[in-house]
């Protein structure tokens, strides 16, 4: 099984021979998710919104308690809370927080004694998530602009790092994991959701940036 559609090469962190231009990929991912932020009702190659959250098994009480704008741009691939429950008071980093759905779910679980920091690179997603947090009066949730490969979080700050459908969109997955490890405290938890392929993806397909983003 290969996580996120990427195969390891001989040199850890160097996959330049099998992926498209990193900046081009990042730009196209940003554009795709800008569309999801501003036009959540459009049809994409993936499911979105409340039907997706229900399909992935999120707690009905939690998802139903959130306003539409917190859920409508959700585009995750599985449920990062399914293998471990967050504990009250935990400090959580959400890598690729999008419009904030998983961050708001995490905020519900950790409560006001916890903290949630969502990181995203798409301005329209950050605007949407920040406005929703303010509207909900969630003082223990904040959103910061940043990349998965360079998280704007201090060393060892997080008890838990969550992510959903994001690492597969990053060209250098090892760099992302190294950065996640940096922000986690010792023995901290990484609980994330992502896609994995059962059949290897040929190099010529890996180089097609359109297939990475839809």
């Amino acid at each position, binding site marked *: 099984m290969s*996580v996120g*559609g990427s195969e*390891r090469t001989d040199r*850890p962190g160097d996959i330049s021979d099998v992926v498209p231009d990193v900046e081009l990929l990042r730009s196209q991912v940003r554009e795709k998710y800008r569309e999801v932020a501003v036009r959540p009702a459009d*049809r*994409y*190659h*993936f*499911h979105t919104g409340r039907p997706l959250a229900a399909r*992935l098994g999120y707690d009905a009480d939690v998802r139903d308690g959130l306003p539409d704008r917190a859920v409508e741009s959700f585009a*995750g*691939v*599985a*449920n*990062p809370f*399914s*293998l*471990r429950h967050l504990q009250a008071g935990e400090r959580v980093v959400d890598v690729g927080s999008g419009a904030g759905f998983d961050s708001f779910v995490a905020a519900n679980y950790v409560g006001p004694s916890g903290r949630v920091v969502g990181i995203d690179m798409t301005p329209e997603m950050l605007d949407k998530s920040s406005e929703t947090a303010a509207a909900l009066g969630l003082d223990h949730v904040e959103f910061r602009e940043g990349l998965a490969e360079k998280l704007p979080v201090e060393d060892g700050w997080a008890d838990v790092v969550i992510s959903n*459908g994001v690492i597969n969109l990053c060209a250098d*997955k*090892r760099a992302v*994991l*190294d950065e996640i*490890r940096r922000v*986690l*405290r*010792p*023995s*901290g*938890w*990484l*609980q*994330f*959701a*992502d*896609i*994995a*392929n*059962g*059949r*290897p*993806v040929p190099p010529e397909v890996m180089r097609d940036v359109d*297939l990475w983003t*839809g």
Partner: protein
Amino acid sequence: MLEQAGFSDVAIGEAVDTFAGAAGESNARTFEVFGFAFLARRA
């Protein structure tokens, strides 16, 4: 890759047919793509 990156206690959840019924289902079927939850601990 998780263990090579310094994580331990790796667990993987059941496969989720994430793209069933979506526009991307055909590509997902071609490469047997499913969604999974992953859990790991910083070693």
